[in-house]
């Protein structure tokens, strides 16, 4: 439990420091707002329409492959920690797991999901 207390304190502090900076900037800096200054910055042009967001499907696919990898890696970490206590066939099971992961990567690659354009 002690580690978590320390980590909680540390996370609290690491949120606190930047907040302090922001608050300092807020109070020490001048505040003279005007509509032009607060407008959306676009190299002097006025923005057209809403911040129209219609992204390429590509971004979703990258995030998707990432999600699958991330979850599988969560499985692999306990395996790696227990590694020295495992018999050879258990290591083989881990390798099979990695092979399935590689299969996922190869599928996404072949399908063209990893191409940018």
């Amino acid at each position, binding site marked *: 439990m002690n580690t978590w207390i320390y980590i909680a304190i540390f996370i609290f502090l690491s949120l606190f420091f930047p907040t302090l900076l922001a608050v300092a900037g807020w109070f020490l800096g001048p505040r003279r707002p005007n509509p032009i200054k607060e407008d959306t910055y676009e190299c002097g042009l006025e923005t057209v329409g809403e911040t129209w967001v219609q992204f390429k499907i590509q971004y979703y696919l990258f995030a998707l492959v990432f*999600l699958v990898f*991330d*979850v599988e890696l*969560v499985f692999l970490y306990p395996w790696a920690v227990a590694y020295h206590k495992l018999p050879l066939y258990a290591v083989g099971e881990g390798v099979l797991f990695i092979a399935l992961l590689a299969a996922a990567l190869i599928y996404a690659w072949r399908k063209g999901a990893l191409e940018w354009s």
Partner: protein
Amino acid sequence: MIPLNWYLLVSAALFALGLFGVLSRKNAVAILMGVELMLNAVNINLLAFWRYRAPTEATGLAFAVIVFAVAAAEVAVGLALFIAVYRRFKSVAADEINLLKW
């Protein structure tokens, strides 16, 4: 020490909120968020029982990790479905997608 039923209460409340989200939301992504809440409630429940009943075995942990995998698979396929639906109907509002309704 925290009694076990506190955890159960919180997870029940979380599950009920997730259920409410699933039943009441229009946007399909929001419905999926409700499902995520329910899955998390289940995981809190699993780990609470693991901690109080069998902390020396890894069973509860293994269960929870597998719930992670299921949640990830569900999100991946669910969101892909929404994207496919969005492409077809230009909307992800669950009540507007009613081709199969009648």
